[in-house]
């Protein structure tokens, strides 16, 4: 199994990810893209910004990819997270899995984004249209 991991400030290239996955010459590719949502509840978001513990985030994503490769019969896994400003509708994260068949591709992709949101050291800050900002995922503070 081949793995592509990256953390970058530049716009994420779906095309680069697809090419990496398609080279496996398998039968199915599942991709998940987490994108900046305009409206959450009654609040309007202008953009998000992401900050990472970069070295650790790369290591942790690679660990998750290896774990998925042990649990599912997959050929290639790509995980790319963006840091810095991510405007509405652009992707902050792309997860892709190539497999001989669609079942493992879907399941591994879902596993990877679920686990990424639990263990990969990246933090998200909302920049609302009203000018206020707020670090996310802080339900534990209330």
């Amino acid at each position, binding site marked *: 199994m081949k793995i592509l991991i990256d953390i970058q400030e530049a716009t994420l290239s779906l095309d680069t990810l697809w090419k990496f996955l398609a080279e496996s010459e398998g039968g199915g590719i599942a991709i998940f893209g987490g994108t900046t949502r305009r409206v959450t509840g009654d609040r309007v978001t202008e953009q998000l910004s992401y*900050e990472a513990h970069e070295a650790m985030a790369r*290591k942790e994503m690679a660990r998750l990819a290896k774990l998925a490769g042990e649990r599912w019969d997959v050929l290639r896994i790509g995980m790319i997270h963006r840091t810095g400003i991510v405007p509405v509708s652009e992707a902050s994260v792309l997860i892709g899995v190539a497999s001989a068949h669609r079942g493992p591709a879907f399941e591994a992709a879902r596993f990877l984004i679920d686990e*990424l949101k639990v*263990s990969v*050291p*990246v933090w998200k800050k909302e920049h609302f249209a009203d000018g206020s900002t707020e670090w996310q*995922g*802080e339900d534990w503070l209330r």
Partner: protein
Amino acid sequence: MTVNIRVFARLREQMGRSSWNESVSEGTTASQLIDMLVHRESSIRPFARVLRVAINDEWAQGDRELQEGDDVALLIPVSGG
């Protein structure tokens, strides 16, 4: 001995710095380091309950003994993706 502490995101903003060196005595564990910091730094007290530690870019347990030169990241729950 000396370890390097790093903080990120909200914790970094709260503390007004992103990394510094800390002198600890031989045998100090990750948990003991957290307790010491929480006691000393009022700015991170609201986060005490949820703080976790990564050592040299990997999640670490609280009973992990620190080594000279360790890179210790003090982390609040992640929210990426």
